[in-house]
């Protein structure tokens, strides 16, 4: 039975180090190749030894696909390609290709400059890695090889983020990467067509969360910033996620313009500045509003926001707004968790007074002068949106990039929903709060098209295996099909052998070949390997390959050959004429295989030339030329060449 196997090496039931191996139709694809921001040793990268034990990496993997430029999705890429030794193709969208090296350089800077790591990938390695990248356009079907094809869909989340459909034959998997179904100030909503994959691998970061209205959060944010600035204070917004920085810049820029504020806004001259360059370039990837107005004004050409110089920095305060989660081991984490004593780079010690409980997210910092606020501006799909990917109508769903307990809860809710309406008011299930349970119920209800198969999740290292029933195109004559359908043979696939008895997509042949009296048989398609044929013997239908059908029916494959007669004036014998033809063609067609066969005929590739005597004129020889339609061009050329006559023998 054909199967799809999925093994997360990272981000199975956690966030960070996204790396998922998919095996589909004999092809192996790696989805994302991220780093974990919580570790600074070997554990920061996925454990690739589980792939290398299968032999050479480049032989084992058919391609790597990167969903977007965030480091938890691409941070291990130079290590994987230049240090572990993957030499195959890497697919990503153009904006991702442009911005990825900026983030990788920044990551390298932190590792090498700040943490003093010696054995880290170099700038040259980043460049060499980026040279292996093949850029893909949205909705463009990219043929990785004859059998494997991929297609990118818009994912929102950050500039250039894409969901990918991976398809081999009739089997397919969709990987969402990180996505956002709600358009924000610079990006549109994720969209995918009804591609009905066997498996949808979707992120579930906010699987059980339905976040507050974005408008409210933005209003709150602007209010806080405005109040502080009005009081003559400063606001520091350490944005660690690219994309979110641009979103906040647009938010502030628009607000400044509307309120006609004069206070300067600066952004740090690093990552954001470099990335802004590409944000200005890739306008087609932004939302409709920005695309419409960019001729008058490119929204990323900020009027009020200027580049920041470190020299401007003096004392901090009085407000810090953290627009995202910080990992343990960082100053940001300490500030967010309300710690009062900080030592940064061994230079500064900031003492904060005793404060109200940090759970209020409002601890003052530096003698009551500084406030710290945490406000999520994450660009992930929340519970409602997670379900919207149901528009792809997947057969099965695998949740990744989230927490196991929440995934399990979500699964339970969705299963309840698919059976019947959820029971109202039931809460505090599985250790979750009432609010959480309500959110999950909301999610389950929102899932308009629940998966027909299973909703799955797998820990890192765990393999999920799905048996599939691939659609196999079948060539069959219309008459036979109608007759057998009338007899009810097709309903239960009675008497069919093999694993192919799944979905049958009958092909009506335009010119069915005559079938033997007692056997159903259809025209041979051009690519026998890709198609199966029903044969009926002893009142039984069986599905077999074209070759097998021919063999069992004792038939030979039809061949179509063009023929032509060329008259040559030549008094010699036929054999000598043939020899002259051979010598002539050999000298003219150096790049082709010209052969003189023992029976006197001459072949050039599939073209056969025989010399015969003219029935009426002994001084004329007739060249009988025949060729298959594959060599039609060469055949025509040869005919015209021979019509010009043979060179005089020396």
């Amino acid at each position, binding site marked *: 039975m054909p199967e799809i196997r999925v093994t997360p090496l990272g981000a199975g039931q956690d966030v960070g180090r996204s790396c998922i191996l998919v095996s589909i139709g004999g092809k192996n694809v790696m989805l994302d190749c991220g780093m974990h921001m919580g570790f600074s040793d070997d554990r920061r990268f996925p454990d690739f030894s589980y792939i290398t034990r299968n032999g050479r990496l480049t032989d084992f993997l058919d391609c790597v696909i990167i969903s977007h430029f965030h480091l938890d999705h691409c941070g291990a890429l130079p290590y994987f390609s230049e240090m572990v030794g993957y030499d195959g193709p890497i697919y990503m969208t153009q904006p991702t290709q442009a911005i990825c090296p900026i983030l990788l350089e920044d990551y390298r800077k932190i590792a090498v400059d700040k943490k003093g790591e010696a054995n880290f990938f170099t700038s040259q390695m980043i460049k060499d890695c980026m040279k292996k990248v093949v850029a893909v356009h949205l909705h463009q079907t990219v043929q990785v090889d004859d059998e494997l094809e991929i297609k990118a869909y818009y994912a929102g989340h950050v500039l250039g983020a894409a969901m990918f459909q991976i398809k081999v034959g009739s089997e397919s998997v969709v990987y969402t990467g990180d996505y956002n179904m709600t358009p924000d100030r610079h990006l549109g909503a994720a969209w995918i067509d009804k591609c009905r994959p066997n498996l949808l691998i979707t992120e579930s970061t906010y699987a059980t969360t339905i976040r507050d209205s974005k408008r409210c959060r933005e209003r709150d944010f602007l209010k806080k910033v405005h109040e502080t600035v009005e009081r003559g204070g400063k606001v520091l917004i350490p944005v660690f996620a690219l994309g979110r920085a641009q979103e906040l810049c647009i938010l502030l820029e628009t607000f400044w313009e509307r309120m006609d504020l004069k206070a300067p806004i600066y952004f740090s001259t690093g990552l954001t500045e470099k990335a802004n360059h590409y944000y200005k370039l890739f306008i087609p990837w932004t939302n409709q509003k920005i695309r419409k107005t960019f001729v008058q004004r490119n929204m990323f050409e900020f009027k009020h926001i200027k580049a920041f110089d470190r020299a401007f920095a003096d004392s901090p305060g009085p407000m810090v707004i953290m627009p995202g989660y910080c*990992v343990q081991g960082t100053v940001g984490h300490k500030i967010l968790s309300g710690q009062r004593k900080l030592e940064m780079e061994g230079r500064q010690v900031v003492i904060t007074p005793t404060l109200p409980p940090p759970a209020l997210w409002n601890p003052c910092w530096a003698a009551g002068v500084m406030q710290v606020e945490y406000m999520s501006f994450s660009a*992930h799909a929340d519970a409602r949106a997670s379900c919207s990917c149901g528009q792809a109508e997947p057969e099965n769903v695998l949740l990744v990039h989230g927490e196991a307990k929440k995934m399990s809860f979500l699964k339970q809710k969705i299963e309840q929903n698919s059976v019947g309406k959820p029971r109202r008011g039931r809460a505090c299930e599985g250790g979750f709060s009432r609010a959480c349970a309500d959110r999950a119920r909301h999610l389950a209800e929102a899932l308009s098209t629940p998966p027909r198969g299973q909703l799955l999740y797998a820990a890192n290292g765990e393999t999920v295996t799905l048996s599939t029933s691939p659609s196999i195109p079948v060539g069959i004559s219309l008459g036979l099909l109608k007759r057998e359908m009338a007899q009810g043979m097709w309903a239960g696939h009675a008497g069919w052998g093999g694993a192919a008895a799944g979905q049958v997509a009958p092909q009506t042949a335009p010119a069915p070949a005559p079938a033997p009296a007692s056997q159903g048989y259809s025209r041979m398609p051009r690519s026998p390997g890709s198609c199966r044929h029903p044969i009926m013997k002893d009142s039984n239908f069986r599905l077999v390959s074209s070759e097998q059908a021919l063999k069992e029916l004792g038939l030979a494959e039809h061949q179509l050959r063009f023929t032509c007669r060329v008259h040559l004036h030549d008094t010699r014998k036929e054999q000598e004429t043939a020899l002259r033809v051979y010598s002539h063609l050999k000298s003219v067609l150096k790049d082709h295989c010209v052969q003189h066969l023992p029976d006197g005929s001459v072949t050039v590739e599939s073209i056969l030339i025989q010399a015969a005597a003219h029935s009426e004129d002994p001084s004329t020889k007739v060249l009988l030329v025949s060729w298959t339609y594959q060599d039609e061009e060469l055949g025509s050329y040869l005919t015209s060449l021979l019509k010009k006559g043979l060179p005089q023998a020396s």
Partner: protein
Amino acid sequence: MDPECSRLLPALCAVLVDPRQPVADDTCLEKLLDWFKTVTEAGPSLLLLQENPCLVELLFRVLKAHDPRPRVLSFSLRLAGLFAAQEDCFQYLQVTPSSSVSQQGELLPMLFGESGPLGGAAWTAPTVRSGWLQGLRSLAQHPGALRFLADCGAVDTIFSLQGDSSLFVASAAGQLLVHILALAMRGPAEGHPSPQGCDWPACAQKIVCHVEDSLRSTATPQVTQALNVLTTTFGHCHSPWTQGLWVRLSPLVACLLEKDPIPASHSLVDLLLSVARSPVGSSDCGLWETLAQTLSHLSPTQAGPLALGILKLQDCPQALKTQAFGVLLQPLACVLKAAAQAPGPPGFPEGATGDSITVDTFLSSKSACVGLLCQALAHLELLQLLPQRPSPWPQAPLLRAAVAILRFCHGSAAPTSDVGGHLCAVLAGCVRVQRAALDFLGTLSQGTGPQELVTQVFAVLLEYLTSPDSSPMVLKKAFQATLRWLLGSPKAPSCCDLDPHTQLFLGELLPVLRKRLCSPCWEARDSGLEFLTQVTRHWGGQAAFRHALLASEVPELTGQLLRDPESYVRASAVTATGQLSSWGLYATPTGPEHPEVQQESLFTELLHILSTDSEGFPRRAVMHVFTQWLKDGHADVAEDLEQFVARVLQAASQDLDWEVRAQGLELALVFLEQLLGQPGSRCPYAVALPEAAPPATLAQVLQALCRVQLFEFALRALFDCDRPVAQKSCDLLLFLKAKATPCGGPQEAGASPDVVSVEAALQRWQAGEQGQPLGELEPEAVMAVLRSMDLEGLRGMLAKSSDHMEKSPQSLLQDMLATVGVLGENEADCY
């Protein structure tokens, strides 16, 4: 343990066992375990537990929790294993009941026995199973542990975990079995136990019997598991008992070869090679027969890795090596046969004639054909580089095969057989094979070949460089292979110039290079520039090359690429022009007869890039070029050395990229070394010379350093916010201090210098006010300040990573405690 950590630990343990408190992310627990590992490795675990009873309490409480959280349970299992690694602590945990928890019992059996998590709902979480295995792995260090494992029935559970759905768990289970086997065979059993196993310890006997059963199994996964356990065993354990083990198991392994198809062939190959590499291999003649038999039984794709492994072995019968080499050559022999215009032996050794099985593989499917070819090419590439590669090495047929494959891929080969026609259809445009074949062809440049073949090699390379169908990656590899062949080509006997064939090829290559430098694809332009840099580095002095290059438009185009929209390309163009200029090949309309004009213009242009380019890569490249020019004593740089250094340092000091500033210090160090000599003799046998510079010279040098504002640059860099810059500056100033100190400072001769302004500036810079200039400097004042500074102390401080405070265990414990109650909606928030 640090007293502060000891103080924080009880609170943390309380948080971990409290089901209402969300646990900080997995990374915290991992880091906590890392810390406990270092603590237990540094001192007695028993003492640690006695001084911190909260730890045992934690283990008990987690165990007794109604619904333990998987990650905390996993953490506890691993923690218990770490403690129990020391025998006294192991015994303590075996018998010690909890002091305050109502339930009592022996802790370790409760954790790892059948009554523990094994039977609970949490066992379904892979992290718990993994923690259980890792805990046992840490624990299994002493004989007591073996008895414990036997008593609690752990070994049977490990057997079952070999087939776990999680790769990580299954792999850990296999490794643990090997570890237990090695532990059991250590001590009294060590030596030469009988193969029958009657004198083997019970635990070892049990494991070996399980392996035997698995090898006899008809289920391939079980066979694979057994083979993997044995592979690790023979790879890691080299004691004499492994010989007995092989004697006992080799008949079963041999039986696998009789099956059709051979089960778990990949694992079987790994095992045989592992045995062959171990001491067992040298003592068992039967092994070579098994290897030979395996080679002939496996399919060409399966046999490839085994053949390569055999050829890598040091001591191995020649016949077996010949057979293995034949296996590797088969696919290429098939290609040669398919491509041969006229019948005749392809020139490979006997045994590699393109057998029918290989042909069948080629014909079976496109992916099989491509896979086999790529594998063969990669294996032969590896082999070519090894000292023990087969001799004589069939260089000529290999070259012919590589060329034929590349022609098949390119569609320029004329097949003469069905197989040839099939190969043509399958390989046409196949990037994967093109990459592999070009890599292989490049490696073959280490050897020679008949001129006719070398001409074919260059012809096919030129085809690829010219073809519009070549993908950027293929093009890059084609450039790399071309470079290797060019640099490996023989010199003309008469002089050290290039031979006529190479010159001829250059004539064809340079127009292609020129075209590629104009490619719309940045990868192609960049690969072209990288090639140009390398070839110029090696051939810049060759008259024929110089002539051909100057006659082409390549140098001018390279100059134009300094303004390429792609920063990677600009950086490569900087490196290339720098290299061309070093050889006087950076062409301008004035021609090579006026190098000073060009040099000035290039220097100015590169300086402009250094000052204005928005991207770091080109600016870094400029600094590399300037440093190299300085090192090489480039005539035009030497003309006004101080002016050159001053301008470059001024631009570098203002750069936002730390690597540019660090490279500026590198250049400053080169300048300093040229003035004062090397930092110290690196040769231990060299005659010791006085390291300090004579005072008169030193005074002049210090004046020069002041003039180029090197001091200001270095002192400012000392307080740079980027650590490597500060570190480099510290090293540079220490070098200067060492050179100046032994001779005494110039200040001894006169009045004490005015150091106030320098010290004030330093304080300002240290406080982060980098904008303040230093103004005119007196060398004496600088030296006095340097002498007073604790540069060694600063260097020690800089050696620590910027997050060393955050990485400390104390910080970790504080963070974990601080997050209690504040982990809410933001916990899952991320990028």
